[in-house]
């Protein structure tokens, strides 16, 4: 909402500075978005007379003018190309050094075709005040010379733009802004009144309201013998200042009321209407050309005004081109109606039609301000256009908007946090238009003004369907009273200023607060730290990706596809963060980063379930070592990532089951699945499937992993660690090499060794795998080292030998291999 300071002062008697006014607007909830001072830009321009104008000696189309622009600019030579540049013309002069906003240049002294030019006579377009560029500006003969042009056109008026929150439809009226400011102590609200204009005849247009659900109340009257033309300067300037284009006096008057009083009006040209009845009804699919020149197909969601020839306007939103007023208009029908805000919202939204009228009706206008508005508007039309008015016709009636709200003074403190003297409360509410109806020592009951559609409004509730009925009823009953009171508290506090509410730190619930995170949440943090400490960079990718790319890595059901994506590469909720990571890796690779290690802890979307996944990708080489060797990432790197992560979040990694059942995006022979028991899958890791390597366009296979953080089991709580006995005896190490079939998993062998001896065996470690001509074809040699930890005494050689045999026997049995 834009308004000029002078327009505000039409309603507000104040000496306050622009700065104070803006500060106060911010404080009371009318946030200032911008303040502009258009006079500033036009400061160098001044009115001037062309004393003489002769043809430029070297150019047919140029004139050599001597310009008088007041003191200091007595006889300035200007070369001018405008066809209307002539002796005696009064126009607008820009001296050397002026910035010309319309052409974005700064004037310099110079010669044009050999003749000096020390300034410029300007057109409207050069001043950026309009499109006219046929010639230089011509001002009336009585214009004072040497006057700042901004002052001459009254443009030194600052323009303030405020943001209007959806609840404050009333503040889309300059008068109501003035009222708020007056309540906040910035001056005095001026009196506004109107007199009834007696009807001279019966209205030639009647109203038939068949849609009272949308148009609750309407007044109208015919005014004939009007003369429509350009508005007087003062009105044009007012409208221009707030960004409205002056059209004709009748249209300008309706716009003036929209801004001045928040009261949209419409005028129909009676001569262009067919028949004598305007019917208000839902649209029936007719096509209608609105004032913006566009065709709209009206629907039953629109409340339209129809005459015998068709739709003439979409009520509360925009009038029609067909019945619009023009310079030949002599008879009009003035419409002043009250539309239902929800209907207007839907109607406007379906056509994407934004208008000043819609903006106001959608938020709700003053529900009582129809009779006075139509009288006042009639008077203004008669004053500016002449003519005589008919009697007022109407349909519907004033809605029952009256309602009360009660404020208990102590609630200002117990809810609002600030105690306010009773008198101040009463003054504030009264100056906002509330009428005191009842007072007790503890409370104040006020009538809500007709323009405040945000206070003590009828109850709209959307209670949770699963609430117990009695609870739902009980809590619902508490709402109206509490809500109305909160509304009034808000009014009082916003006018006083929320800065005056004392700050109170929250009282502690406990001396030592409980942990803010639960186990699951803590694990997310740990997962991040573990992966980052393994040299990976954390990323945050969009939850939505291209569905075609996502399909390479999992299900992409329609149920997880956005109905209104902003682009096709962000239309599918991703089945795994890997989709984002692979694309991110590719982008980085294309920027010249050959080695990429990225991870994300983020959501994945499957079958309408959201899972939290820690996913990662490694590509290229692992960090180079000092000896110059850099090894390409292998699946062992990501296996280590996964196991380190799981280990850090209390997963008993020794009891994990490892299988090769991995999803389609993994290389089937180079990937693994880790689970706790057969069903609870904790992670996948491995090489990206070769066909995806190709599809994505990687030069070599990235290594990837996914850890399902939601599947981690709760650790046992409060469990003390097992008692530790530190043996004083030297541990014994023995090495064994087994020849087994190549397809035997090393883990089978390691577990067999581990299980062979429960008491003394503390560690089994792989230290070599060999395949080649020294072992039979199709076999491999697996070398392990075992550690025996004697507990009560040193082991004798025979004992060590016995255990070794047990291990050899167990391994050979479980793997079908033999000692090498």
């Amino acid at each position, binding site marked *: 909402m834009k308004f000029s300071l002078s327009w505000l002062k039409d309603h507000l008697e104040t000496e306050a500075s622009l700065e104070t006014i803006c500060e106060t607007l911010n404080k009371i909830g009318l946030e200032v978005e911008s303040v502009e001072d258009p006079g500033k830009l036009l400061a160098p321009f001044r009115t001037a007379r062309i004393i003489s104008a002769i043809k430029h000696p070297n150019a047919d189309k140029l004139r050599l003018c001597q310009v008088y622009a007041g003191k200091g600019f007595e006889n300035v030579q200007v070369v001018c190309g405008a066809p209307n540049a002539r002796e005696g013309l009064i126009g607008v002069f820009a001296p050397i050094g002026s910035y010309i906003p319309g052409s974005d240049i700064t004037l310099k002294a110079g010669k044009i075709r050999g003749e000096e030019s020390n300034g410029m006579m300007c057109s409207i377009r050069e001043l950026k005040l309009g499109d006219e560029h046929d010639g230089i500006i011509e001002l009336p003969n009585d214009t004072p010379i040497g006057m700042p042009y901004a002052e001459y056109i009254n443009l030194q008026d600052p323009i303030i733009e405020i943001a209007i929150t959806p609840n404050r439809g009333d503040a889309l009226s300059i008068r109501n802004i003035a009222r708020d400011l007056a309540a906040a102590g910035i001056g005095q609200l001026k009196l506004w009144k109107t007199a009834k204009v007696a009807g001279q005849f019966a209205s030639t247009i009647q109203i038939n309201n068949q849609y009272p659900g949308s148009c609750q109340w309407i007044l109208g009257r015919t005014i004939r013998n009007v003369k429509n033309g350009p508005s007087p300067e003062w009105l044009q300037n007012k409208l221009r200042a707030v960004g409205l284009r002056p059209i004709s006096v009748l249209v300008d008057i309706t716009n003036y009321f929209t801004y001045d009083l928040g009261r949209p009006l419409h005028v129909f040209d009676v001569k262009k209407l067919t028949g004598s009845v305007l019917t208000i009804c839902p649209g029936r699919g007719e096509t209608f050309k609105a004032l913006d020149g566009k065709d709209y197909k009206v629907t039953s969601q629109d409340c339209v005004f129809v005459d015998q020839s068709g739709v003439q306007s979409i009520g509360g939103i925009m009038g029609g081109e067909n019945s619009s007023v023009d310079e030949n208009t002599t008879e009009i029908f003035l419409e002043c109606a009250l539309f239902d805000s929800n209907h207007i919202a839907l109607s406007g939204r379906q056509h994407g039609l934004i208008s000043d009228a819609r903006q106001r009706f959608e938020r709700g206008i003053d529900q009582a301000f129809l009779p006075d508005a139509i009288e006042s508007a009639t008077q203004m039309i008669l004053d500016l256009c002449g003519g005589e008015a008919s009697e007022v016709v109407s349909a519907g009636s004033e809605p029952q908007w009256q309602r009360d709200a009660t404020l208990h003074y102590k609630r200002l403190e117990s809810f609002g946090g600030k105690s306010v003297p009773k008198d101040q409360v009463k003054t504030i509410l009264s100056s906002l238009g509330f009428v005191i109806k009842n007072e007790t020592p503890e409370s104040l009951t006020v009538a809500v003004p007709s323009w405040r559609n945000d206070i003590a409004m009828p109850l709209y509730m959307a209670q949770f369907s699963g609430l117990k009925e009695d609870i739902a009823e*009980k809590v619902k009953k508490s709402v109206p009273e509490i809500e109305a009171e909160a509304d009034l508290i808000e009014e009082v506090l916003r006018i006083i200023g929320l800065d005056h509410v004392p700050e109170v730190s929250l009282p502690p619930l406990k001396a030592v607060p409980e942990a803010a*995170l639960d186990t699951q949440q803590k694990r997310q943090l740990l997962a991040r730290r573990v992966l980052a400490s393994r040299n990976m*960079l954390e990323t945050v990718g969009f939850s939505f990706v291209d569905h075609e790319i996502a399909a390479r890595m999992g299900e992409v059901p329609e149920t997880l596809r*956005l109905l209104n994506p902003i682009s096709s590469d962000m239309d599918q*909720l991703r089945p795994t963060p890997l989709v984002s990571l692979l694309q991110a890796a590719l*982008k980085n690779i294309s920027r010249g980063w050959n080695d990429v290690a*990225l991870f994300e802890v983020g959501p994945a979307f499957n079958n309408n379930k959201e899972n939290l996944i820690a996913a990662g990708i490694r590509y290229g080489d692992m960090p180079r070592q000092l000896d110059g060797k850099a090894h390409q990432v292998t699946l062992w790197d990501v296996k280590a990532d996964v196991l380190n992560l799981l280990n850090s979040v209390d997963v008993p990694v020794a009891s994990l089951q490892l299988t090769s059942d991995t999803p389609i995006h993994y290389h089937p022979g180079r990937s693994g699945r880790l689970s706790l028991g057969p069903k609870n899958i904790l992670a996948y890791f491995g090489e990206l499937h070769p066909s995806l390597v190709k599809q994505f366009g990687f030069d070599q296979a990235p290594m990837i992993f996914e850890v399902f953080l939601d599947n981690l089991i709760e650790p046992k709580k409060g469990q003390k660690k097992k008692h530790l006995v530190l043996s004083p005896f030297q541990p014994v190490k023995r090495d064994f090499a087994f020849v087994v079939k190549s397809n035997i998993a090393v883990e089978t062998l390691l577990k067999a060794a581990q299980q062979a001896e429960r008491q003394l065996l503390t560690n089994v470690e792989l230290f070599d795998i060999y395949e080649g001509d020294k072992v039979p074809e199709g076999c491999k040699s697996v070398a392990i080292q075992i550690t025996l930890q004697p507990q009560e005494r040193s082991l004798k050689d025979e004992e060590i030998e016995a255990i070794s045999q047990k291990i050899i026997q167990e391994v050979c049995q479980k793997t079908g291999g033999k000692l090498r």
Partner: protein
Amino acid sequence: MDNDLEILKQETLSALDKAQDLREWDAVRVAALGKSAPLTQKLKELGKLAPDERKERGAILNNLRQELTAAIETKKLILEEVALQKKLSAEAVDISLPVSIQNGLIHPLSRTIEEITAIFGAMGFTVAEGPNIDSDWYNFSALNISEYHPARADHDTFYLPSDPLNHQQRLLRTQTSTVQIRTLLKEEPPIRIIAPGRTYRADHDATHSPMFHQCEGMVVDKGITLGHLKGCLVDFLRAFFGIPHLPIRFRSSYFPFTEPSIEIDIGWNRKTGELGGKSDWLEILGSGMMHARVLANCGVDPKEWQAFAFGVGLERLTMLKYGIADLRAFFESDVRWLRHYGFSPLKPASMHEGL
């Protein structure tokens, strides 16, 4: 002293002087003081002398022996030092050779969430979560945003096909306020929660991202007032930015789910981006006393309980605190950006270490 003893002394000292290393030094030592050394022989022969002569000769020989021993030991220390120096210089390496530094890093957004959690955790809040895909009821209706409310249009919501089972309109949450509702339905007051998370709006330009992060907060208790709201958020903002006297401005505003509604600005310098001054104001937080309807929609009696709630954009907090200019870069996963703005995983945000 006998001439031969003097010669012996001089020869030994001269040999000692010439010794270059411990091996040569040892040869001198053995030659001068060893079993077959002349001086040792002479000492052995003392017994053969008459007592008077023996005493006198003994003193001379012993003095000489002591003198030579001292010289030899001194020389040993010198040679050992030389040998050590030689070894040290032989062992010297080029310490300028580069080693790899562990440089995995945490994303700045994760860092901000940790910091926020640490601060609110100290004030007794716990972290609550909710789904990214939610229903129309949780995202709008329950929060007092009716079907016709202009806020619905303002939010540029991403929609998903309706739930095939209950036909509810599904959407990507436009605000973390959904978690207020879920928490109120699940927990009994008193409640103190924060809910950081992903949020979505169909808007994509230099200052808007279709996905961004918010942190919601809610305090429900008996006797909670707007004064607590102010105190809590002032405490938070000053702790988060580490500026004890950060200017903070409270402006009346409007949100459908709060009443009174408040927008909070912090003082900064628009030109330099520096926080703490009072030359300009920057909007940073939305908040308010929770609307009676929202509490009652969730079965909480607004006569019995009072509550405040707030929501804050996490990208903006992060950008302000760490001087990051571009919002879009947060989600572009550019290795150069991640390395520049990321945080060490070994320095988690905690109150006892300081933020």
